[in-house]
């Protein structure tokens, strides 16, 4: 059984995993709550090109800082969310988006997990069915086969003793 320390470690670990990463300090917050929300929403949509598994909100990279500044500037000028995302995609490609659009080049990216789930499901289903059928069949040995089995097992036993 797990000791008290073990449980403590487990709970701590779970809490750490549950908490969302704290976003890097935003340089200038917007006073307007609508703008602030749009700003944060946009930052979470955009990938930092330097440290690729972070959004530009989370990243401390210099480039992410510059891109945040650019987003703020465009928001202040009254640009729409679409226009801002387009601005980034035009320069850095679809890769800058955390949710890339569905295109021929990204079909596998979007459908891959479901395909794998389907393949896994079918495999399990076939395996389960085969096992069920196999177990039913095992009990049906003919009289000859039983005799042969007993002989083989019996002989083995005798050999083992001598």
């Amino acid at each position, binding site marked *: 059984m797990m000791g008290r320390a073990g449980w403590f470690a487990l709970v701590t670990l779970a809490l750490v995993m549950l908490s969302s990463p704290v976003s890097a300090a935003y340089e200038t917050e917007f006073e307007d709550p609508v703008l602030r929300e749009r700003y944060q929403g946009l930052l979470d949509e955009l990938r930092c*090109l330097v440290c*690729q598994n972070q959004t530009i909100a989370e990243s401390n990279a*210099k480039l992410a800082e510059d891109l945040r500044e650019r987003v703020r500037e465009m928001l202040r000028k009254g640009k729409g969310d679409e226009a801002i995302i387009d601005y980034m995609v035009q*320069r850095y*490609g679809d*890769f800058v988006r955390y949710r890339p659009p569905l295109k021929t080049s990204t079909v596998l990216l979007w459908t891959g997990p479901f395909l794998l789930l389907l393949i896994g499901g079918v495999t399990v289903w076939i395996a389960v069915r085969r096992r069920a059928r196999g177990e039913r069949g095992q009990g049906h040995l003919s009289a000859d086969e039983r005799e042969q089995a007993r002989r083989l097992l019996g002989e083995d036993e005798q050999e083992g003793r001598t």
Partner: protein
Amino acid sequence: MVKRYLPLAIFGLLVVFLAIGLTLNARLIPSPYIGKQAPAFEVPRLAQPERMISKADLKGQVSLLNVWATWCVSCRQEHDVLMRLAESDQVAIYGLNYKDERDKALRWLDRFGNPYTANAFDQEGQVGIDWGVYGTPETFVIDSTGVIRYKHTGPLTYEVVANEILPLVQRLRGGRTG
């Protein structure tokens, strides 16, 4: 006994895919600008702050645009390659000095040599953003009409210059005269 070898076949396929995955570099992001007009820019020159340099200066010839900075460690690494390429006089090399300090950059060129025909001084990094620069050094090949034909991310090597850049430059030149 097809079924017997099915797991082996699947395993083989997996190995092939993973092997391909190992050779790919996730850091290399394809530039959306390949085959498109290079973004316009106009910034002061590095050596002559009073004079501007713009995309128009690059037109009319095949050229390279090399993005560099003194704070960029691998730029030092590729500098000798650039020097050698400049000495061979095969293609005009323009520089985009990215988010740097002017005096530091000028000192760098004094010390290690200047392979550039001219340098654009992009202090704010705006040109860099417009060109989709995400990691220095980066090198673009631009044809005589101002279309970006190729981009190399990371330090240039003699191999890249010999196998990728120079053949492409030759091809682009041939297309223009022929």
